[in-house]
């Protein structure tokens, strides 16, 4: 039985059939109203409950993740801070060992200088010229009354005066000599003073450097305390620092990848001479994969070298090795890098030779001989390629530093991103829960809208029934009250 046959079951008229079917459907829908309402409400409530639960569990997961992120952030910050403080103490130790170890020598030096100055000072003290003992005798003699007529006395006195003047002159010479010596001693003290001044300045410098370091340590310690106490400001600072590190390290890594690509292009072509130019491995040229492997080995060696030098801390096993073993590892990794760099330089040279051969062949086949670069200019590109081939492996060694920062910061950044994603999902499910509730209500209303005619009739019927009931009740009450009044 086709649809049209079913449709026209009641009447040949399309319009009449439509009316009959509408009435039938409406009546059936009206009859199924309560179970349908219950079903819609149940489905809506079920979806709402499921979405709410999902949202709550996602929020819970987000909280756990945030806590975990915070722990990771604090742990990383504490480690970094400890590392910095350790380094500062190491510098202070170095200052103390190198500079202040000379302090006893310096002290002795200064002490010697002070003693010498003291001695010189004592020696340079002015000693008053000794008054001749016979001066009083001369004075007494001089007071003897003399007669001008006695030439003998006058002669004696003249002699005494002459001797006195001579003595005075001698004393003056001696005094001048001693003064000169004193001045010489004082002059000799000048370099000692200067030396002492320089020594004291040096001490001052060392002490100031030490003070500066101690101030830095104080700052670091304050930061460390904040981190240990897990303060909000410390968390914010660490989070911001982590994001900055992530982007900066990512940028540097992108540059390094660019370098690796150039390196790859330098060696991929000549690698075909070693491993063949036609083989494929997993859809890629074998020569290309071999070149890639060499570059990755170089990067790995770079990582080990940086790790052995304790510049990075990606492999705790290497960091905890004995110093002798670590130094040995440094030499081994460096040697391998040197060999690989030399191999790359050789391959870069080979590349140039092959490129020239290709160009010559192509020119001879296609007849474009003018395209070949002159022999005299060829050495420039060859040297440049060889130089790049040699330098790039060593440049790639430093990839370890941004890589470490990237890995460490990516833990935090990925955590933040995951937390954000969880929060978004939780919000989405929360919205979905509310939406399902409102959709349920809306579907119920739409259902009722479709059967509004039977519902209207039902309302009227109930209304009239209620009115009749109310009227009967009112009449009985009215009769009773009238009776009571009467």
């Amino acid at each position, binding site marked *: 039985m086709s649809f049209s046959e079913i449709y026209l079951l009641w009447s040949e008229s399309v319009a009449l059939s439509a009316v009959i079917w509408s009435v039938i459907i409406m009546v059936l829908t009206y009859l199924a109203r309560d179970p349908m309402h219950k079903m819609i409400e149940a489905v809506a409530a079920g979806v709402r409950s499921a979405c709410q639960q999902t949202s709550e569990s996602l929020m819970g997961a987000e909280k756990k993740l945030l806590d975990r992120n915070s722990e990771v952030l604090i742990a990383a910050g504490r480690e970094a801070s400890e590392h910095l403080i350790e380094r500062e103490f190491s510098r202070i130790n170095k200052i103390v060992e190198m500079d202040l170890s000379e302090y006893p020598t310096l002290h002795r030096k200064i002490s010697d200088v002070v003693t010498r100055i003291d001695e010189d000072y004592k020696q340079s003290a002015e000693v008053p010229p000794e008054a001749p003992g016979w001066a009083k005798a001369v004075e007494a003699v001089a007071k003897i009354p003399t007669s001008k007529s006695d030439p003998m006395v006058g002669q004696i006195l003249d002699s005494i005066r002459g001797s006195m003047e001579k003595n005075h002159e001698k004393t003056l010479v001696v005094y001048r000599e001693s003064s000169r010596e004193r001045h010489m001693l004082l002059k000799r003290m000048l370099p000692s003073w200067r030396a002492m001044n320089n020594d004291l300045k040096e001490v001052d410098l060392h002490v100031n450097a030490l003070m500066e370091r101690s101030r830095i340590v104080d700052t670091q310690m304050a930061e460390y305390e904040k981190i240990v106490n897990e303060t909000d400001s410390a968390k914010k600072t660490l989070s911001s620092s982590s994001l900055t590190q992530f982007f900066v390290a990512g940028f540097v890594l992108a540059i390094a990848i660019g370098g690796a690509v150039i390196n790859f292009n330098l060696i991929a072509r000549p690698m*075909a001479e070693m491993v*063949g*130019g*036609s*083989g494929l491995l997993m859809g890629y040229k074998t020569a290309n994969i071999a070149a890639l492997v*060499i570059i990755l080995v170089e990067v790995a060696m770079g990582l080990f070298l940086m790790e052995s030098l304790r510049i990075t801390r990606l492999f705790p096993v290497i960091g905890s090795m004995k110093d002798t073993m670590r130094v040995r*590892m440094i030499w081994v990794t460096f040697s391998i890098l040197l060999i690989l760099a030399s191999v790359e330089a050789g391959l870069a040279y080979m590349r140039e030779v092959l490129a020239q*051969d290709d160009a010559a062949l*192509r020119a001879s*086949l296609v007849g474009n001989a003018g395209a070949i670069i002159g022999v005299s200019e060829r050495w420039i590109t060859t040297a440049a390629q060889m130089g790049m081939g040699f330098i790039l492996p060593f440049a790639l060694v430093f990839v370890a530093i941004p890589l470490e920062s990237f890995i460490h910061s990516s833990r935090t950044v990925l955590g933040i991103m995951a937390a954000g994603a969880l929060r978004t999902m939780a919000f989405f499910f929360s919205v979905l829960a509310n939406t399902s509730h409102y959709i349920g209500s809306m579907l119920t209303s739409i259902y009722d809208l479709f059967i509004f005619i039977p519902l209207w009739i039902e309302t009227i019927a109930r209304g009239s029934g209620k009115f009749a009931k109310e009227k009967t009740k009112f009449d009985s009450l009215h009769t009773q009250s009238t009776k009571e009044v009467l």
Partner: protein
Amino acid sequence: MMRKLILTAIVVTLLAGCSSKEELPHTRGVYMLLDTSGTYTEELVKAQHIINYTLAKLSPGDTFAVARVDTASFSEKDIVAKVTFDDRPSAANRQKRQFREKVDHFVKEVKPSSYTDISGGMLQAIEYLNEAGVGKKTILIFSDLKEELKKGYVRDIPLQVGGYEVVALNVTKLRSDNIDPREYMDRLQMWEQRVQSGEGTWRVINDLERLDSVISD
């Protein structure tokens, strides 16, 4: 560290070992038929350019053969030069130079043949390329496509060219074609039908500037 170095060496060796000939579906094989009948030999200079161009485009591991079309072309003796290029690019370049020398010598010394056995040449090409085990197979026919068989030679054999690309190059118009172009069209159509019934693809390139679409990098 030494262990790592040795491991790397092993990996590189293994990678090299993986490049066996049986596993090279990406390699190309080109077989070029040169029509040496009558006055068409004058066109062989153009064929030289095409050969040189093809040599320049082919890579290590690819196969290339040039054969003449004469009275009885279903023969290895008609192969002028053939090569499967070495894996190493430098060796492949040497082979290309030698190949070109052989072709140059042939073009210089070639004598016109009385008949044109294109079908025999095609059969020989199919046999050769199937044996070479290459991935992409191309047959270049440098001819006016006018087949003239000596009496007694049977060539109404279906061509099994499934997976082949057959390209007719420099299909010159004969004097009779100019009188009645339908002859030229019928000739092209006949070859197209033969190739397509053998499940191959058929193309005609008369403008040699468009060769890059035949041998892509």
